[in-house]
């Protein structure tokens, strides 16, 4: 008799589990994931997983480019083309994001700390520090962004040169040419 009762309890509990499992499923699928905020974040995670599965072997620089686009590529280019002891001038926000124009940059590449993260151990000088920082008198390179920065060079460069990094004076270029 006791055994029979115990079996009956297990049987009831089993069906209760099934019923509440269905309710839980309906709750999560029909209610939670239908709510705008939850469905947004869940969809975002699913989308990211799709990208991860699609490109599992991307290197860190490639993944950085996916997230930061032109800003990362540009700083990587500067880091690859300047010596580690370079002191680099970075132009202001408007150069990166000209008003009324589409920009290849994202994030805050004009922010000093932002730039340091990708250019370290090179020193970075921003416009508002000119004349205030001792490094503003020791500039070795100018980051040219949308043509801004060319005016700081002591030698002439074609106005068609829109983006890149150039030494502040042409001694270094001459040295390399010799």
């Amino acid at each position, binding site marked *: 008799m006791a055994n029979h009762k115990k079996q009956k309890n297990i049987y009831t*509990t089993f069906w209760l589990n099934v019923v509440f499992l269905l309710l839980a499923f309906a709750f999560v699928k029909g209610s939670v994931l239908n709510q705008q*905020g939850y469905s947004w*974040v*869940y969809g975002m*995670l699913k989308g990211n997983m799709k990208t991860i599965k699609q490109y599992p072997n991307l290197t860190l620089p490639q993944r950085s480019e996916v*997230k930061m686009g032109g800003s990362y590529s540009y700083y990587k280019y500067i880091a690859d083309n300047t010596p580690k002891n370079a002191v680099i001038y970075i132009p202001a926000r408007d150069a990166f994001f000209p008003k009324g124009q589409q920009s290849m940059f994202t994030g*805050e590449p004009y922010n*000093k700390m932002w730039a*340091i993260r990708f250019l370290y151990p090179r020193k970075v000088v921003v416009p508002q520090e000119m004349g205030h*920082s001792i490094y503003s008198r020791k500039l070795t390179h100018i980051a040219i962004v949308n043509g801004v920065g060319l005016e700081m060079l002591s030698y002439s460069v074609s106005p068609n040169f829109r983006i890149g990094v150039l030494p502040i004076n042409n001694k270094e270029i001459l040295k390399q040419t010799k």
Partner: protein
Amino acid sequence: MLAIDIILVILVGLSIIELVCPSASFIEKAGLSFLTGIFSQTILLVLLDALNIPLTRLPILSVTVILWLILCAVLYKKGYSFKSFNEYKNLLIKQVCSINVVWLAFIVVIVYVEYMNFSKCMYFPTFDRDSLAGFDTIGYVIAQESNIKNLSIFDIAYNPGIHGPGSYISYAPFVQLGYAIAYIFGAETSKIISALMFLFFLLAFYGILARSIKKTGAAIITLLVMLTPEMLAFSSMSATNVMHAIFASLGTIYGIRWLDKGEKGDMLISSIMLSANAWTRSEGVIFIAAIGFLALIKAVRKHSIKQLILWGVIAVLPFFLWSVYQRIFGLTSESIMMTSPFYDQEKIDLIIKNMFNHFLNVQYYGWTFKMLMISFVLNIWFIVKKKDNLYGFFALIISIFLYMLVLYQIDYKWDTINNVLAYSAKRFIFCFVPLAWYYLSTNKVISYPLEKLEDLLTFQIKSEPEVFVKTGRRR
């Protein structure tokens, strides 16, 4: 090397939690282990730096091993011994016997969502503005220059605005030091820290909730906390807010439990988590103030102040040490806090309006604050008649009030108040999300049905250990 350090960090954290709260469940201990361990290691980094010892792998590993050995020695002296294999086996059998399908389904969903979140966090490098323009860069430079106080980016000659209002030189140190640890031990990005913090938080939150409202309810609530849209999105980024929310909410939750149940272990975990919260963001002191205020009232009524003093000392000590360290080594910036009282009705209205708009925003926080209101209203009878969950209620209310007070006292020199309230304040509210879910689910009106649900769904199978005891085979 990074794996070795992480294991060591977990062992240190586990030993600390085992020492201060042996009665915590295994899952709580596991969850709190990394959180406590990494917090302890960042303190060690500051101490090493103060002693002019370079922050490189060998010194960091050495002091961490020494700390762990000391903790093991204290545990040994206190009579701690490892459970036998049979005890673990019996514990596991007991756990397996008490599972139900609904709990299992929610756990599967939690694991699946966390798998996606963890993968996303590890796959994409740091890209958010606040990290690249602050925490991640500072951590990276610390790793390159092997110190904190003489960093090139803290040099006024290189960075003329470094001591300006709201400068990152004066930020609380946890996040940047955590990232520095990842870089020092060879990580390509610092994202492992954010990923592990959220993973271990979920374990700890589930653990503490399971102790309060049983495991099926705990699994449901943990899923809802985890899915909080804005918080989940930020948990895989590198900003401070989610990490701060982890420490602040756990510290407050353990504080509420301590005030409710009076257990010393909960008190000590609360003080450790709250000290980590102020070590992560300075405004975290408001959570210490909220629990401290409630504990003071209780201490005065019970004429017992000893535990409150111990709790208070642990909670504020690291923050105090960091303040002293900053003063000694000049890591200070122009204050953004207005210390003298003033009255500005327009500012008050603006803060209240913006904060409440955020609280009611389901796009950011899902059902969190709506459920909180519903639970509160339904529980009013229990609050009035049975004084149900009063500490939880007041901890939540006081901390929200103090947070708004901090926003009011800030002199917005580096940004506009509108920008801060519109963009930053929505992330400040993360702290209240786990806290709100803990409070609403431990209200009698919610916890009672959840406990009943657990009883209904649990199979009444006699577990193996009891059979062993009855047959006497264990002896």
